[in-house]
């Protein structure tokens, strides 16, 4: 029997709440998220933000570590190309993102789970809209459940019938 992705998605109780780790750059996206707060915009509570000075600091290891430890999605927010507070950091992010996206696909992690958005300090509404959109897209994909996979330990002996 071949392994292939099943037709039906597993359901996880009442409603699956995706857990999304976000890396926001201090000068643009983090500020925009603050502005969304001061403007009292409302959005889904599924995202946990890790603050970095620049999206260029996002080491691909961070993205993989998040997935490996239970994140269903990862979102990187940085400044628009040309606007990086540190000139070029976001271009490096873009290049890493492109290759990492490809690697994740080859590892069976759907494209919608890893997202890069350029959000400037004034674009509070885009923070709201992107988070809501990503939460719904990841919800539709279901849990990534990588940590469950990793926890699988081979037992000392297993019996299998012919």
């Amino acid at each position, binding site marked *: 029997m071949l392994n292939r992705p099943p037709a039906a998605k597993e359901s996880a109780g009442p409603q699956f709440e995706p857990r999304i780790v976000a890396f926001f750059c201090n000068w*643009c996206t983090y*500020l925009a998220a603050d502005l969304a707060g001061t403007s*009292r915009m409302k959005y889904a509570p599924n995202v946990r933000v*890790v603050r970095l000075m620049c999206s260029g600091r996002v080491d691909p290891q961070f993205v993989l570590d998040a997935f490996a430890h239970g994140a269903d999605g990862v979102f990187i927010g940085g400044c628009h190309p040309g606007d990086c507070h540190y*000139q070029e950091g976001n271009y*490096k992010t873009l290049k890493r993102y492109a290759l990492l996206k490809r690697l994740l696909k080859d590892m069976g992690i759907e494209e919608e789970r890893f997202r890069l958005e350029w959000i400037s300090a004034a674009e509070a509404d885009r923070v709201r809209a992107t988070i809501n959109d990503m939460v719904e897209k990841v919800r539709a994909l279901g849990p990534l459940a990588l940590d469950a996979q990793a926890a699988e330990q081979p037992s000392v002996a297993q019996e299998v019938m012919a």
Partner: protein
Amino acid sequence: MPEDIGFSGQETPRVGVYICHCGTNIAAVIDVKALADYAGQLPGVVVSREYKYMCSDPGQALIETDIDDHELNRIVVASCSPLLHEPTFRRSLNRAGLNPFLLQMVNIREHVSWVHLDKRAATEKAQDLVRAAVRRVFLHKPLEKRRVSINPNVLVVGGGIAGIHAALTLADAGKQVYLVEREPTIGGHMAQFDKTFPTLDCAACILTPKMTTVGSHPNIRLWSYSEVTKVEGYVGNYKVQVKRKPRYINEDLCIGCQECITACVYKEGKTPDEFNVGLSKRKPVYLPFPQAVPQKVVIDRDTCIEFKSGKCKKTCIEACGDRLAIDFTQKDIFEEIEIGTIIVATGFQTFAPERNPFYGYKRYPNVYTSLEVERLVNASGPTAGEIVLRDGSKPGSVGIIHCVGSRDINTNRWCSKVCCMYSLKLAHLIKERTGAEVFNFYIDMRTPGKGYEEFYDRLLDEGVHFVRGRVAEVSDWTAHPSEQGKLVIRAEDTLAGFVRRIPVDMVVLAVGLEPQKDAQQVRRLFNMSCSSEGWFLERHPKLAPVSTFTEGVFIAGACQGPKDIPDSVAQAGAAAAEALALIDSKTVELEPYTASVIEDECSGCKSCIPVCPYQAVTFLEHEKKAHINEVLCKGCGTCVASCPSGSIRQNFFEDQEIFEEIEGVLAHA
């Protein structure tokens, strides 16, 4: 366990966690008591409290007392955004004898309580974030801020009223100021106005003395007809390149006699005069306006025959005689200056009303913009102060349309703040000079400043007609013989409740204010952000309107947002004061978020060298290893992520600290 994750030094972590209610801002959504209880049972947490206002004196005292009483060595504060109060709580730690960087803040207000409705989910999110912060803060190391000296020289970019006032304030304080202005003269838009509201002071009368002082002030180096081309460095230590465009006039020799203009082979001007907004024509050699500072002519190479063909008679040189001030060989000069602070005061442009074709600008000759009318009204304008139609006759009726381009979802959303007042001013001046019937078409009358409402009252008494309604169109099709030859303004009179057709001889469009055309290039040059509308972004809309997110770079005047002259001057003074505060403190502290190469670990693979835009990472040929210049490093961390062997560390953003934060937010199954 803390030991497993490499808690630095021999200490065991003793963490104090502080949950702020922020009044009801946080407490109304997040169960702060439950959060404090949750934090209290996390490994390493010795004290966990919640309090109404952590940023207040008693709030901070709580932390400082606990540090003493409980020998705390790490602090977590869960409250508002760190961008607001991280410095506040770092100072608390400092006062209590703890290194300020042994603090981690958690944003549970802007990122949680203000943006989520579900209280249970919000509290759970806060728990995740606090847990992550506690795990991260174990790994924080004591850090020292770097101190750098400040160059006392200042660069002011833009010679309008804001730039002029900032430059004068700083120069009077004894600082050396470079004032760089793109046009051949300073003065900006204010120089084009005739009278200023509400006092009807003559703009030139109040402006030109300041301009003259700038031109002769020993502490101001005025570089007109110049632009900033490159900015490098950091607060207190900027290196700026300025391109000085060639006037083809030797500024030291020109005495402003203007005989070259009279003698020019062009008998009359053919080029639309920029200062008169195209209402008159100038020659290739010209003085922008009579009171220009510097009082020197300029030759426009795009229209001068000598540049086009090389075969001009050059009567200008003849007229200049033995003053020998004309020099066609001049080229761009690039000056390099070192300054410590920068004030950007590059002003605004007006809305181009062609974008609203229903107002007929450029289709009907007698539709003018407000700026054009300012020039008509002005005694040294194209019509010597006579308000006339294109055919030279006096208008019998004038319609002034407010909010052109502003408050409009199709063009600019914002209110341009000054148009109501200047429209009232123009109404007054037009009525006074021509006796015409004047109609102002407005949506709301915005007259909030000192003396502004009183000015409006005065206009009401002067017999100006006010129609409350947004003008739908200006056209020349007539419905009645009395409208023949006139422009008909159609607007709903909302107070009266019906649509009016008002025929007028002249239409004045109160065009709104917009960011300059090249605002994006300028702000990138100075590493500033823009708001979504394109105005330069201030650090905080209420509390820090003249500083930007780049330390040492300030903004003043209309480039930050539409405003009138008093506010521009006030901001210019404020920016000068803030620059002075920096300069007079002699040194400035920089955040210590720099990266450093661990020499023993570096393999010399050179992967990091090209990654740094500030050239802070260099390759040491002798040791064959990478090295980061701490002074040039701005702390973005891009090289840290690039290092394939993990041999670069970033202070406060080390790999392990971030892993702890990631794993901390996800730990709760």
